[in-house]
């Protein structure tokens, strides 16, 4: 647990980088500091490893005032990842990762063995061990940066905009990997970003900073999206916070309808009668294995001769499906909006159709959870 007790940083030129910060970072969780540029996120982060000394207040790690520790010793027990990695250009990937273990006095062979372990953990090929930083892509450098920070197995990991210099596709991959790593390692992570989407994806708790180094709100992402503390937080989060918030609600509570799902051998007129009985203008056609094939409208079914099986008709593409077990309401809503039938196709892990969810059903579900 890391606690800021009235921590502040005033620079001699009058700049207030951090103003009277009170905040508790939970052990084993990811806490994200988010806010516009210059709002004091980096300064607050760097107070934790004493790269910045506060001008007021106290910071404690597990109750102990960090000023009582030698800064170098403290820093060796805290992983630190910075933007653009900051790898040593004269050291190989392996030796970069081994930096802190070597500082701690490990034998070289042991430090390198540990570094090799970490390369695997962060998804680097063993062949890259002997490379030099300038031979790596930005994303690979960042992986090395994370591995280097984890090498001595510190309980705390500080990350300052580690992914903001890589392209969006790589960034998403790195975020996914961080989530996976964290599930495995349960570090106390403090992560700084100016990107609210990144904060919502990664954070168990989010601290929103406003210019002047003031903490505007500190809450779980779901609460933040539901109840922004003030106009600043609301505008910082963005206009679509309602939809984004749906990613915190599972789709599993929806009740998909099976009545309008037919296999491709069903005769057109039978399908039409049943669908009209349910008041549904659309029918979903699936294979014998319940793999979705496409949509067909009941008006089209009225125009085909009797006895033709659904599989012989021109079907509208079914768009993308959502997984009922693992996806969120946001994914279900997205699938419904993009479907030509205005209905989302729910599938199980094997891609077999469980049922169909209409926009009405979704509306009701969203209404009930966001109430």
């Amino acid at each position, binding site marked *: 647990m890391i606690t800021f007790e009235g921590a502040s940083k005033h620079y001699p030129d009058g700049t207030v980088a951090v103003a009277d910060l009170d905040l508790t970072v939970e052990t084993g969780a990811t806490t994200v500091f988010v806010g516009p540029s210059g709002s004091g996120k980096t300064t607050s982060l760097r107070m934790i*490893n004493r*790269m910045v000394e506060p001008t007021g207040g106290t910071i404690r790690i597990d109750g102990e005032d960090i000023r009582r520790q030698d*800064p*170098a*010793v*403290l*820093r*060796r027990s805290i992983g*630190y990842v*910075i933007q*653009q990695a*900051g*790898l*040593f*250009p*004269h*050291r*190989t990937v392996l030796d970069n990762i081994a*930096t*802190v273990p070597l*500082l701690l006095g490990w034998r070289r062979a042991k430090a390198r063995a540990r570094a090799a372990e970490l390369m695997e953990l962060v998804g680097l090929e063993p062949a890259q061990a002997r490379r*030099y*930083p*300038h031979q790596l892509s930005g994303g690979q450098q960042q992986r090395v940066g994370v591995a*280097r920070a984890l090498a001595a197995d510190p309980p705390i990991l500080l990350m300052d905009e580690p992914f903001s210099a890589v392209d969006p596709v790589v960034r998403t991959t790195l975020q996914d990997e961080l989530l996976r790593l964290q599930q495995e390692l349960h570090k106390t992570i403090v992560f700084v970003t100016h990107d609210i989407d990144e904060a919502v994806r990664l954070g168990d708790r989010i601290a929103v900073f406003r210019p002047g180094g003031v903490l505007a709100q500190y809450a779980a992402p779901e609460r933040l999206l539901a109840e922004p503390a003030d106009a600043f937080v609301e505008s910082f989060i963005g206009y679509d916070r309602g939809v984004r918030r749906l990613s915190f609600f599972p789709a599993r509570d929806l009740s998909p309808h099976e009545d309008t799902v037919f296999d491709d051998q069903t005769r057109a007129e039978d399908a039409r009668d049943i669908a009209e009985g349910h008041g549904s203008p659309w029918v979903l056609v699936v294979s014998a294995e319940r793999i979705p094939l496409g949509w067909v409208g009941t008006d089209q079914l009225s125009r085909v001769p009797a006895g033709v099986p659904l599989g012989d008709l021109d079907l509208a593409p079914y768009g993308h499906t959502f997984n009922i077990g693992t996806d969120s309401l946001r994914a279900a809503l997205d699938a419904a909006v993009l479907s030509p039938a205005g209905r989302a196709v729910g599938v199980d892990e094997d891609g077999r159709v469980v049922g169909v969810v209409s926009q009405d059903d979704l509306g009701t579900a969203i209404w009930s959870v966001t109430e």
Partner: protein
Amino acid sequence: MDILIDLYQWFADPAQWSGASGIPARLVEHVYYSALALVLSSAVAVPLGLLTGHTGVGGFATTSLANFARALPTIGVLFLVVLFAGIGLVPVVCALVALAVPPILVNTHEGVRGVEPRLRDAAQGMGMRGREVLMRLELPVATPLILIGMRTAAVQVVATATIAAYVGVGGLGRYIVDGQARQDLTMMLGGSVLVVALAVATTLLFAGLRRLLVAPGLRAETASAR
């Protein structure tokens, strides 16, 4: 063309290759003075440059000192020291050290200063103390520039060590000084050729040192930057 033939005969004369005034003996003297001056200069300039570069303190004083030393006429230094220390090795080495210190000092200082602040920040953030930042980051990253400073110094020293002849301690300069006194153009030319060859050998030596001492990860960078 005659001069080339004379020069060839000068080098081909077996008497030239033995004895206290033969080419090998003069070469050894020359290399000895040069190497001594370089080692002494490096022993002064590298630690001083590392210190000022690392602390950022004394940067202005360092550069001023280096510029002052650069402006000193080497011959002037030589005779000045002769006044105090008499004829011999001391004035030669002093004059050469005054020549070699500035490029080594400035390059060491700039090499350390030039380490990206981001890297220094990462080093401290991982828990390196000042000394560790210096030895594990700044010195290795500054090595290419330090070697360039030493190479510049070495080539100047090798070319200038001919002044040893003025104070009677030999070296390849003897051929030039004696040749001048005797109006022997061939001898002067022979001496000059030897000095030039030694300077070229020095450059090659530093190319080798660069391969040996500079991490491959830095070689690519400095090669493209230079």
